[in-house]
């Protein structure tokens, strides 16, 4: 595509290639910003530049935060004895949305996969072990996606902490609410049958 201005082209180039944005969407966004009042672009630029300079990573759980310790970790009403281990910040946000969990989190920042160049040392696993050693943590909930890499990562973490007095649990795997049994894949359905739960517990 031919651009009337080099400046415009440069902005389009930097927008395109962002997750979910191709050349056409990028052009639409840039033209919108160019046509609209000056303040709009200024505001976006400012907020982005503030993010790059001021956004912090929580020293406890590795989530994004405005402070050294994030709001969840510093909240006194959250249970300090239980940690939910997740792969990414998006998973943390998904679990927070359920409002079912009142403990704190630990973000691994990926799953172990040497094939993709991710060894255990690239993830926040050592710090997790330290965290357990230095505080009163009684339970780790592994909220890791069910996959071969996920299972390997859980196995690895389990081995790192097995000598410590901490209980390890896995999120339940099974049929999602409101779905049809006949359309569930066989692994999930098979697992749901073999790892069924007593009805009394379900009702409670």
């Amino acid at each position, binding site marked *: 595509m031919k651009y009337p201005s080099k400046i415009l082209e440069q902005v389009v180039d930097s927008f395109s290639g962002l997750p979910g944005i191709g050349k056409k969407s990028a052009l639409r966004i840039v033209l919108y910003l160019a046509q609209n009042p000056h303040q709009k672009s200024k505001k976006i630029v400012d907020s982005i530049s503030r993010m790059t300079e001021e956004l912090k990573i929580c020293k406890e759980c590795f989530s994004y935060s405005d402070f050294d310790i994030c709001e969840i970790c510093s909240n006194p009403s959250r249970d300090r004895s239980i940690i939910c281990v997740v792969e990414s910040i998006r998973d943390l946000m998904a679990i927070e949305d359920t409002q079912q969990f009142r403990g704190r989190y630990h973000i691994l920042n990926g799953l172990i996969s040497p094939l993709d160049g991710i*060894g255990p040392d690239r993830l926040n696993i050592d710090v997790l072990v330290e965290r357990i050693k230095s505080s009163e943590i009684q339970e780790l909930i592994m909220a890791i996606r069910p996959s071969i890499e996920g299972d*390997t990562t859980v196995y690895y973490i389990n081995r790192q902490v097995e000598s410590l007095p901490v209980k390890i649990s896995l999120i339940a795997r099974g049929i999602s609410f409101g779905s049809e049994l006949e359309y569930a894949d*066989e692994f999930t359905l098979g697992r749901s049958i073999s790892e069924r739960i007593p009805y009394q517990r379900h009702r409670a």
Partner: protein
Amino acid sequence: MIFKKILFAQFKNLNELSFNPKPGINFIIGNNGVGKTNILDGIHFCCMTKSYFHHSDKMSIQHDRDFFRIESLLTNDEEHQIIVRCKKNGQRVINFDSIAYSKASEHLGKIPVIMIIPDEVYTFINESEERRKFINYSLVQTDREYFYQLNLYNQQIKQRKSFLKSNNPLSFENNSLLDAYESDMYKAGRYIVKARSELIKKINPYLEEFSREMSDGQQSCSIRYKSNYDEEYALSEWAKQRESDALSGRTRTGIHLDKLECFFNNQSLKNFGSQGQIKTFVIALRFAQMKYLQSESHRNPILLLDDLFAKLDEDRVAQLVKLIERSPIDQCFITDTNLDRAKKIAKQINQRTSIHIFNSNQLQIHEKE
């Protein structure tokens, strides 16, 4: 299951082709290069969600095109539709009755299929990889858990290899991550070895029966399975071999090195078999595989024979015809370059046959005289 109608679009050299097969035996006649084998491969795609020949889906897209599509209509008691679409970016969608599978593997085994191509006769005897492929091909169609375990094993062996390659050997001892990979390989291996041994146990009687039949009782064939995995030692072997595996870049122990040995009259086929004996063996083995698939899945397989008759002498052709007649198949597809030969064979076969002829990129049914 019977294919009633297949539409190919931009699949290999089939730009636009509509094919209306009949129940029973379908001969597909045409000169070299018109696309006979591609029709068989398209049918294979509908059954196994991938090409028989190429590992990558992209290779099946017509040159300079962005995608291919195969639409097929099948019937047994009721009608089913399968649509396979592959794009150049590797995206593959398989619809069964208008519902897309979330994983293509869910489709495996719905329509059991066997393909026999003459070139394989030699690779089967000479390459152990081809023989393992034979085992896996049989089992993934009948055992869903096998598919899962094999996948797990292959994934973890790759991860282990990659870890060994990129890390310091001093860290290998008591390494929990390597333990994780090896324990998965151990568990998956146990399942795979058991499934493979049972498969061979079930196939051997069929193989013996068919090979005798094909050779007028002269040749009695069998296969022997030898695993490179021992439940008792596998874990300690892997732990011991970490350093040397890292150096060689290979994994020396495990089910990926399992052996399948072929015998005729208790002699090694590879060392003492003549070309004819090897042909008899491979064809008898495929029919045994078919019988196995049928008895495990209670579904009649589709049989695909690619230009097989051209490579056989008259006696063997006659025996093969007898085998086909007796086989539990609903539908069979046979390609050939020679119309007269096909007519002659069609006359011998005591089953419903139809002959389709390639004519300027169309398949026309040949009327019987």
